[in-house]
């Protein structure tokens, strides 16, 4: 998995957030954050809940991307199955709310409509699932890894489809958005702010992680596996750990996403979503801290604007994506801020 010759910027990952140097890249980052925060505030003041929710959607898709970016961008692990964690996170929220709603038990445990509990369970469930999938998949590399992560995600998808208890292919509604202590999660703006704060936390953790010893080892695992092993560090446990953390972040985003929509279905687990998530990370700029956010903004806005114009907007997305891969590989952030590789 050390095949990428693409140079990647390491300054974003190596420097902790809020480093005093604020070059062009820093300005782009500040602008992205400000935009993401201000747009829903303005929408809220104008009474446009739809746009607040749209911003929340962007933030959650970005967060799922931050998770994938840790594996794919920083770790060089081309996971084509991150929808599995997104969907499992979503199902944790849905199933927990379902049992809380009708008071029934799941394997002797009650459901909960407290988001804090749901998040903890989602993190745990996705972590364990990724541990199992990663343990098998990371024994391979290259195309095998891509296909195997895809296949395992598909396994989860078919399982959700054919398991009748929670709606099967029809999905599972969450009648009342799960709650939070002290915060009114029903209020679109409050929910947005919660999601935004969690996105920032996920990005801060990624930055801190990539600047640490663990991050140095992960970077070396991506760039040159032989060097890492020769230095005395086994690549496998480093990769597996990153893979698990990556899945947990994506899973948390999934739990919130189900609550945003009030609905969870196998569509969240579909391989289309895995593909879209990769597209978002690549559109934004692989391995860049702010790449997933930039990618999510571009993707969701394209979906909303193009999707409003034509039913076949994915056709045009395909063309754009093909163009980006063949001719402009540095992503949105690279295009806006210029590439400054090497740390």
């Amino acid at each position, binding site marked *: 998995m050390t*095949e*990428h*010759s*693409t140079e990647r910027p390491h300054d974003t990952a190596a420097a902790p957030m809020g480093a005093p140097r604020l070059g062009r890249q820093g300005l782009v980052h500040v602008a992205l954050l400000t935009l993401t925060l201000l747009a829903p505030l303005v929408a809220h003041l104008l009474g446009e809940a739809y746009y607040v929710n749209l911003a929340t959607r962007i933030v959650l898709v970005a967060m799922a991307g931050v998770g994938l970016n840790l594996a*794919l961008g920083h770790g060089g692990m*081309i996971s*084509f199955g991150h929808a599995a964690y997104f969907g499992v996170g979503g199902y944790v929220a849905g199933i927990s709310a379902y049992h809380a709603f009708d008071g029934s038990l799941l394997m002797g445990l009650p459901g909960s409509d407290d988001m804090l509990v749901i998040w903890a369970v989602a993190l745990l469930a996705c972590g364990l699932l990724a541990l199992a999938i990663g343990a*098998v998949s990371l*024994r*391979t*590399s*290259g*195309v*095998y890894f*891509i*296909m*195997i992560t*895809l*296949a*395992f995600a*598909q*396994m989860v998808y*078919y*399982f959700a*489809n*054919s*398991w*009748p*208890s929670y709606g099967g292919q029809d999905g599972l509604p969450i009648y009342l958005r799960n709650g939070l202590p002290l915060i009114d999660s029903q209020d679109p703006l409050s929910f947005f702010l919660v999601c935004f704060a969690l996105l920032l936390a996920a990005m801060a953790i990624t930055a801190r992680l990539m600047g640490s010893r663990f991050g140095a080892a992960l970077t070396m695992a991506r760039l040159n596996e032989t060097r890492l092993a020769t230095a005395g560090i086994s690549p496998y446990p480093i990769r597996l750990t990153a893979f698990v953390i990556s899945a947990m972040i994506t899973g948390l985003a999934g739990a919130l996403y189900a609550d945003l929509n009030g609905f969870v279905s196998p569509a969240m687990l579909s*391989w289309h979503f895995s*593909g879209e998530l*990769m*597209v978002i990370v*690549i559109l934004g700029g*692989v391995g860049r801290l702010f790449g997933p956010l930039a990618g999510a903004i571009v993707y969701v806005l394209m979906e909303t604007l193009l999707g409003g114009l034509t039913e*076949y*907007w*994915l*056709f045009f*997305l*395909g*063309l754009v*994506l*093909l163009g980006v*891969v*063949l001719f402009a*590989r540095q992503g949105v952030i690279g295009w806006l801020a210029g590439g400054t590789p090497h740390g």
Partner: protein
Amino acid sequence: MSATLLIEQLINGLQLGTMLFLMASGLTLVFGVMGLINLAHGSFYMVGAYVTALTTASTGSFLLGLAAGSLAAAAAGAVVELLVIRRLYHRSHLDQVLATFALILIFSEGTRWLFGSSPLWLSPPEWLAGSVALPGGARYPVYRLMIIAVGVLIAAGLYLLISRTRLGMRIRAGESDREMIGALGIDIRRLYTLVFALGAALAGLAGSLVGALQSVQVGMGEPVLILAFVVIVIGGIGSIKGALLGAILVGVVDTLGRIFLPALFGLFMSPSEAAGVGTALAAMLIYILMAVILAFKPQGLFAAHD
């Protein structure tokens, strides 16, 4: 659990296996020779099915439709190779995944745009519509048997092509050493286009044949594509022999699992519970099979190279 049912399901599994082989052989050939991972392989399956359905509807000849479907898929493959794929051979797997994912979007949405979302219907011709008696007395559709026969013929044809012809020699040379075939003075670009189109034609043929069993619709190639991935991961990427064995293994295990797992759980569970658990587990069975095989053989059963 009668022997008749078992035989019937075994043949069903074999039929799914031969279809998967048609898909997987193209994928694995393209990977073995060009080192390319192609997600858009399912699109050629869809193209084959659509063209066959349309041609059959307008000419009334299923055989003509079948030929048109395979040829159209081959042509689509050649065009895609010339326009996009050949720019990807020296790129990372990530770029290949993204570009071919983009191709899926273009093919699927383009098809939806042209033909709408509602499925087209394609039925087997009347001379294949009957059924024959199996040992044990059950009747089995002739058409499905014909699919198996076609699959066997194609497998034999591929074997002869690769082991006995000049093209096959070049393909083998390309698999073992990409630099060497350049040195041998073989026009690599033509060879690559040809191999890619051949793979697309096989996928198109599979789509055409299956189109007459199921409905012809956008996205029909995707579940098959993912099964084909499982097949070549199990068989060893790049190996035709592995693709054949993997395809039959996956086809049979998947088919039998769907029938017998719910019955198995029915022995110690209530029927409705057993149906639920059994169906869900059956859906996961081939992936579990893949995981188990990988745990022992990370490069698949017949590893060629990575």
